[in-house]
């Protein structure tokens, strides 16, 4: 697969996403990880960066990065673009169904560039 992502084979390695300014304010972008996982990387209006799995757990579609970012009672969330379930950007917990959670990723900001990696075991 030639997808432009460096295939290090090490799932714990950091993957470069993009310059932080390339993430729309209060929006998200999707990043492809080695091994095929997808991260949805968001920036909230205060500038904090979060990364969740891009897969909407309710539909299985890789779309969360395209959702609307907002807050409720100061909890930052992204709403799935398919059916609007909201996920806490910090933890991946679904605010509309407490039994559902999407996995989140480690985020590293280095000199204005965002990196993510899968959480260790």
């Amino acid at each position, binding site marked *: *697969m*030639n*997808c*432009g*992502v460096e295939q290090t084979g090490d799932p714990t390695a950091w*993957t*470069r*996403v*993009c310059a932080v300014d*390339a*993430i*729309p*304010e*209060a*929006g998200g*972008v*999707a*990043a*492809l990880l080695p091994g*095929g996982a*997808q991260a949805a*990387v968001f920036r*909230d*209006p205060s500038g904090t960066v979060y990364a969740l*799995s891009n*897969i909407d*757990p*309710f*539909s*299985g*579609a*890789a*779309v969360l990065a*395209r*959702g*609307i*970012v*907002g*807050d*409720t*009672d*100061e909890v*930052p*969330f992204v*709403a799935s*673009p*398919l059916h*609007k379930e*909201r996920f806490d950007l910090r933890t991946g917990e679904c605010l509309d169904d407490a*039994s*559902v*959670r*999407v*996995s989140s990723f480690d985020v590293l900001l280095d000199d204005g560039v965002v990196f993510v990696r899968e959480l260790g075991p």
Partner: protein
Amino acid sequence: MSRTLVVVGNGMVGHRLVEAVRAADVAGDWHIVVLAEEARPAYDRVGLSSYVDSWDAEALALPGADHATDEHVELQLGDAASAVDTGRKLVTTASGTAQPYDALVLATGSRPFVPPVPGHDLPGCFVYRTIDDLDAIHAAARRARDGRGRASGIVVGGGLLGLEAAKALRDMDLSPHVVEMAPRLMPLQIDDGGGALLARLVAELDVTVHTATSTAEIVPEGHRLVARLGNGTDLDADLVVFSAGIRPRDDLARSCGLEIAERGGVLVDEQCRTGIADVYAIGECAAVQGTTYGLVAPGYAMAEAVAAQLTSGHPATFPGADTSTKLKLLGVDVASFGDAHAQTEGALEVVVNDAVAGTYKKLVVSDDGTTLLGGVLVGDTGEFNTLRTLVGRALPDDPAAILSPDGAAAGGVGVDALPDEAQVCSCNAVTKGAITSAVHEGGCESVAGLKACTGAGTGCGSCVPLLGKLLDSCGVEQSTAVCEHFPQSRSELFEIVAGTGIATFSELIARYGSGSGCAICKPAVASILASLGTGHILDGEHATLQDTNDRHLANMQRNGTYSVVPRVPGGEITPEKLIAIGEIAREFDLYTKITGGQRIDMFGATVDELPRIWRRLVDAGFESGHAYGKALRTVKSCVGWTWCRYGVQDSVGMAVELELRYRGLRSPHKLKAAVSGCARECAEAQSKDFGVIATERGWNLYVGGNGGALPRHADLLASDVDSETLIRLIDRFVMFYIRTADRLQRTARWLEEMDGGLEHLRSVIVDDSLGICAELEAAMHEHVANYVDEWNAVLSDPDKLARFTSFVNAPEAPDPTISFRTERAQKVPVLLGTPEVSRS
């Protein structure tokens, strides 16, 4: 073997019976034959007087009354039943056919009573019961007007219907006189005190009232008529309308030996059964245990009872009826309910007569002053709905306090005071208990929801305000706030944005909201900003406000791919363009389908393919069809006079013009339109937000129609207007909607919830009563002048284009989760599993 049900009479009640049987008879056991004397399917007789607004019989049509698609119902229009042989179970019709039955229901209604005044049958004398009657009156009124000054008409009878007829004459530009034998108007419903005030209010409406006198004789004089009144007055008139009461049409029943009640009407028991097996009578022709009812709600209850017996085989009884009435249309508020004349033994009357305010209110209460028995309201009927449901029950307060304008009940009697069994909607027999449980258990949170799940409010509509109050009292806050971030309603935000010129979401929320926004307020504000022309919807920070589909100018599918719908104005397309769509779909391997909106949808494009597909489409002369936006979708057309042998105008040309005019216009919800070339209505214009139907003299404009989950027929806003007027009215209508509707509120719901309804809309849009039409038109001109194709704008902007990739760190990589299989020779998405759900 199916059994045959013959229904004689296709009025409102006969129709309700057929509907109720069809709804319950899932197995199709009954074959229903309806014998109808009138030449058109059942229509809304209660709303008959509104016919003079449009002279459009379709506006009165009852939904589904033609039973066109129901093989179990056979409607024989224009063929009255002439005889019944109850022994052989056979009905003979006027045209001579013999129709056997297993069950027979008589629903022949009433006829207007015409007193045997000499001259009552002269040309120029009419009754007021059917659409045909009104057409005849209309024709005579037009003849009378020709070449002379103001013509005049006399209505014999000052009851509820007589006053409606007087108003209709006035609307036909005749000067109306009402002659009433009793000493007051509406003698059956209201008392002397109320009658005196009513006479005053009616006189202000240009209706001349003559009470306490009879019509002794009518004599011809040239082309006109003279009515000699008992009090010696001679009234000249061009026509006379008799509205002196009704008599049950029981002649057919008499001739076949059915028992007739003492004061007329087919005598039936409380199950609506006549004395002969399998023969029932319902509606105005029936005398249930001797009593006839001249209102539609009791008739409906009888229809439901008989339908239940026919389909379940079990007895069901007519539950009795609410005979409260409210005068519609005349522009005077009059209502009476219960024992309005205090005929109950020992009944006491409490009256508040305010001549200055022009209100008269009377409550009739039991001798101990605690139970409400009835009442009369004139001039202000605000409390009618709550009071009538309280009849027979304990009063929540001292009667005088309830009536006093500034007393405890200034806002009306609280709905909390109503017991659960109180009937809130009498048209559909829905109790307060049924409504509150729909709210608490059924999760209904709006009036629209209550209508859908209980049926309340879907008849005459008079109980709708009460539904709102009940929601309030159930603690369902019908807040108008957009969401937790903005306390304002959508229309308030619109005014703020328009007034302040704020052009970004972040500034708006900083100044007028709180927090950082959500998936409700962001798209709502995005739509407002777009309606006000603040640039491309993907410009700068606008992009992340957009709802799913707007965000990528395409509709997102279940697997994360998109569909692409180019605009095909009016559904008219050249072979070259059809070929271009075919070639593009083939090249990108897209699933294609003809949509319900007369255009072509291409499905299964990945986000990175979208700009390349648009490039090809734009080069072939296409532009965005906004299938993704809360914006104008399509203006459907029929082929019209260019080809169709019935067409009377160029409907395709008009549809194309309208679609190009309003394309790209963002609105609170999507907007759909259609133009039909004649009254056959092949473009289904009456189901659209705005629909246009060609007439011999121009165009009829209908507004507020809807398909979808809660279908609604559009209302006629203007008739026979020329093209220029038509477009001006639509400009105003659409802009007024954009300014004042709630988010995601289609025009149908907006119009239903508008205070004053269609009349108010007409006064704003047609008569410019708010003085805002110039502004609305200017806003529309602005939109038209600044329209650009959204797809093309993306193609020429590298920043926007950069967002059309699956992965920011791998712009060339396709999304590995997307795959397709083949079905009926085209690709369709492979259903995705739910790989990442982790339920704790």
